[in-house]
């Protein structure tokens, strides 16, 4: 059995094949994976919010798309991953409760997805798989032996991206 590494909310984990990185129960949060197919080094980041610009310096950087991706990428490069080969996949960003007068905060899932893609494009990392939006939770995992990113849901089926 490959090692199963859990990634909590506002956290990231990096590893090498044959490990599997998994994050349970994402709602408006996003699970962003980065993977270098040659060295089979990868990481999974579970962000809650789009950007850190309104944050205080003492805060957990892994909560935000921008700082979280930057830190995870650095750590992967230190382990031997090569930036130009890294591919990204992401899933999550749903809106769990539908309110008639949805505030900006309620639409945070949508904003998270947009921010994640913008951060990745700024770093020139291609997004090769995406499953975002909807109104349901997701459990996501990436298998570092082949880079397959699995998305599980309660009643919307499972998929690989």
């Amino acid at each position, binding site marked *: 059995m490959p090692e199963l590494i859990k990634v909590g909310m506002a956290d990231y984990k990096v590893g090498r094949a044959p490990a599997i990185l998994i994050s*349970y*129960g*994402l709602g*408006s949060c996003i699970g962003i994976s980065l993977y270098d197919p040659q060295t089979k080094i990868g990481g999974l980041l579970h962000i809650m919010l789009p950007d850190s610009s309104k944050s*205080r310096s003492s*805060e957990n950087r892994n909560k935000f798309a921008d700082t979280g991706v930057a830190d995870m990428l650095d750590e992967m490069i230190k382990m031997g991953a090569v930036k130009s080969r890294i591919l990204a996949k992401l899933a999550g960003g749903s809106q769990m409760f539908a309110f008639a007068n949805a505030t900006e905060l309620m639409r945070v899932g949508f904003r998270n997805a947009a921010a994640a893609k913008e951060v990745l494009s700024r770093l020139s990392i291609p997004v090769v798989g995406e499953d975002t939006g909807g109104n349901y939770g997701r459990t996501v995992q990436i298998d570092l032996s082949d880079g397959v990113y699995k998305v599980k849901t309660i009643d919307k089926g499972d998929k690989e991206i």
Partner: protein
Amino acid sequence: MSDDIASLSPAQKDVLKEIGNVGAGNSATALSQIINRRIDMDVPRVSIVPLSEVPELVGGPDNMVVGVFLRVYGKAPSNILFLMPKESAFYLVDMLMGKRTGDTKNLDFMDESALMEIGNILSGAYLNALYSFTNISLLPSIPALAMDMAGAILSVVLVQLGQMGDHALVIETEFKTDDDGIRGHFFLVPDSGSLEIILSAVGVE
């Protein structure tokens, strides 16, 4: 203090516990009257937990639950979340809709509406108690319901807190019916800043 809720004094914790106790007591009485069953509740837990650990309070982030969410408006804006395991929610629907136990296998529109109304009544009872302590009048929004993974549902509340800090103050009470058929968790999660207002209203700043 809104910056660092990790430093509540024992007196402050006691006050919040007492608010939780009376609030949840009111709610439990209301629920008991509706379904005509005895409801037991435990002593509320007041905990300050890192955001990432909140889902563990309800059995882990991928545990299947039904959640009724209400936004609370007023001088101390907060969120209320009433979470039940799926089986408890079905059992409660059986009771509310006059069905035989075990009849409910999924939630239709009417069932959801009934559970949202329960959320509404429980929240009203809870906020009344909060008012009697603090004189702060708080109004709940219309309820919203979701059946999904606990982590996904909780994230709605946690994201709002996450904008300000890394910890959540959770006043949590567990309910259960005497036959153990229904178990629920009632969460009051004050916005950062609201906690100060509540504590100062009861004189334990």
